[in-house]
């Protein structure tokens, strides 16, 4: 795995970091460095965000790099664009690190074709819970601005964001905006691949600044997060240890499968657990009921979650959209990122970090994931 470059350019900040990034994006289009830029934009109703692919620079002003929420995971937008092959236009996608990681996983799964796409990431302060933002968008905007500008670090972001240790530059991004925290000081523009280098060249920007301080501050935060992560996982562990605690954790689940359809990694057109295969015969259900005196509906909720874990946890990037999408506020993301941590750890695989790193496949032979299999068996029971 290649290491992060040590040099970057310091772009002076005018009217806020995000404004500066927008100006940069605009110039990228004007200079013809890119034909289009994929970036998030506030919807007309002003209470959510959508991904918009922009060709005409005049639209850039309406855009928002790094929205306060992740309404739709950026990788999904890219997938809808290039699932069927590479395009002829040169496109830059401005996304969160977790969206870049999901993108990388989907590339490995042949759902995204990156050939003409450049991935630009920004140091991410986390995202707000969607339910909170939608109920009071203006507060949300204010909170997030304070958070982003570093004015207020206490703003409560989504649970998974608070323990995220992949919030900054990743080996898999081409260009990265490193935040120096304090407004005014400027943002680091860090080329992280040939693509990235080329852009700076074309924009005639020199990356001469050394990044040591920024890197250290990032490293510090990562360490801090790692600690919080470990602590949180201790709690979560008990939420999923064994079938009964799973039952308890997912007791409220109504089987709407929003978590799966919001998940960028769950790319199946038709989820196995929605397919006709998993439709059950009435006698079978009655038998099941008899065995325990009663059976809960919708059936196989736990099977669904455990099954989904076994399908995608290796690629899970802990982006948290599943929790946002859950209508009964089950901490799906916490559970899944914990399980992901386990399964990925088993193979020393880091989802979404390195495009060259193949997804470990021969998972089922391995002792370590038998646990999951056990759960499935019990769930099927």
């Amino acid at each position, binding site marked *: 795995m290649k290491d992060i470059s040590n040099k970057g350019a310091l772009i002076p900040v005018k009217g806020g970091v995000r404004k500066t990034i927008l100006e940069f994006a605009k110039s990228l289009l004007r200079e013809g460095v890119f034909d289009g830029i994929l970036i998030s934009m506030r919807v007309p109703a002003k*209470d959510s965000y959508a991904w918009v692919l922009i060709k005409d620079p005049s639209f850039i002003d309406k855009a928002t790099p790094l929205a306060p929420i992740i309404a739709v995971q950026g990788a999904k937008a890219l997938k*809808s664009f290039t699932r069927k092959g590479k395009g002829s236009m040169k496109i830059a996608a401005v996304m969160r690190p977790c969206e870049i990681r999901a993108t990388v996983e989907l590339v490995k799964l042949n759902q995204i074709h990156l050939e003409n796409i450049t991935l630009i990431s920004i140091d991410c302060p986390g995202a707000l819970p969607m339910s909170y933002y*939608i109920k009071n968008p203006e507060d949300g905007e204010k909170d997030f601005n304070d958070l982003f500008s570093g004015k207020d670090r206490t703003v409560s972001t989504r649970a998974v964001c608070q323990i995220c240790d992949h919030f900054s530059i990743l080996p898999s991004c081409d260009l990265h905006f490193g935040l120096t925290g304090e407004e005014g000081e400027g943002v680091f523009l860090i080329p992280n691949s040939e693509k990235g280098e080329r852009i700076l060249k074309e924009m005639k920007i020199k990356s001469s600044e050394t990044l040591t301080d920024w890197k250290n501050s990032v490293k510090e935060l990562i360490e801090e997060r790692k600690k919080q992560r470990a602590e949180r996982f201790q709690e979560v562990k008990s939420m999923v240890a064994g079938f009964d605690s799973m039952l308890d954790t997912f007791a*409220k689940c109504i089987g709407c499968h929003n978590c799966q359809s919001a998940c960028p990694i769950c790319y199946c057109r038709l989820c196995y657990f929605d397919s006709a295969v998993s439709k059950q015969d009435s006698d079978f259900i009655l038998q099941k*009921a008899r065995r325990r005196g009663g059976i809960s509906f919708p*059936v196989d909720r736990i099977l669904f979650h455990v099954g989904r874990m076994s399908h995608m946890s290796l690629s899970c990037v802990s982006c948290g959209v599943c929790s946002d999408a859950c*209508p009964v506020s089950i901490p799906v993301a916490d559970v899944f990122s914990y399980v992901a941590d386990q399964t990925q750890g088993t193979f020393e695989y880091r989802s979404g970090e390195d495009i060259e790193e193949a997804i470990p496949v021969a998972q089922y032979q391995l002792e370590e994931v038998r646990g999951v299999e056990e759960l499935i068996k019990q769930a099927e029971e």
Partner: protein
Amino acid sequence: MSIQIRIKKGVEQGLIDFLKFLLTNEKVSAVFTLRKTPKEGVYDYGLITDSEMLTDAVPLHPLMPVNAGQELSRFTPMKKPVAAVIKPCELRSFIELVKRAQGSMENFLLISYTCAGCFRFDVSLEDQGNKHLSDYWKAVERGENPEGIRETCTVCEYFVPINGDVTVKLIGEKFNDEAVLIFHTKKAEEMAEGFEGERSEVEQFSDKIGSLTEKRRSEKIKLFDRIGKEMKGLGGMIDVFGRCIKCHGCSRVCPICLCILCDFESSLFDYDVSQIEKELLRKGAMRLPTDTILYQIGRMNHMSFSCVGCGMCTEVCPANISVSAIFLRTGEETAKLFDYVPGRDIEEPVPVTVYKEDELSTLGEE
């Protein structure tokens, strides 16, 4: 010719006794009802075979974790008799599904009740100490719209079961000291044979039913007007549905959306890059993934005339869109074209499966 049985007990207990009676006397092999789960404040639908377990049953609890009509259809045809306590709109959903050959009503003893509506998920989840719940029952007795029920419940005028074998009187009744069950069908009467209780001619429903219907009709007009104002043309559509994140949760929990794979999730709606690029050239900017509004209008076209306004779609929408109210409003319009009422009568064919030669005669002629 139907009869009613009065049981000198609280309505829920009376009903549970009846269910126990059915189960213990093997008149049914299982009972489908809402019940408490081991987890505090969490309820689910259960198929109960052991009469002991009925002690956890809360058949009349104002919550719809899933649309029972959808659940029932999923595991029919039932080969043995089963009693199911479901809400009037769930019953109507079930009938709509059966019309579409999704399951059968055979072997079901369908028990429903005069329903004052059910809680929104957020309300029920935060209902510590059952404050909302006790208020709810007071409102039911007074025949008013309780607090915290779903938007479409507040305007529902089909809260007296149209079909079903047994109806439990609830709204405007003294349900703390007695339960009144009405048996509409022969099957139901036979099943009730030997069940203790004071039998009599069916007495009228409380006049509170009428007043609540009136109330809700006027509420509905208000609600629909409001939506009409929001839904002004494409711009309005985008304001309202622009928030949609395309999780399609609405279609998955919709009892009418029966497709295994929604057409709008099929490969037909994956585009070649070149197609998207062309669109981009034309517009200068475009949302990705696209077809957000297409999906909504498309779905309305497919099912609105059968929408029973159960409200599940609104509940699961992560973007907080009043999906149900919007679909109900459009649905009443499309159904009206064929004086269709979803779930009214199993014999009424689904509008898109039939036609009349002498209808809509101006269309196509002018």
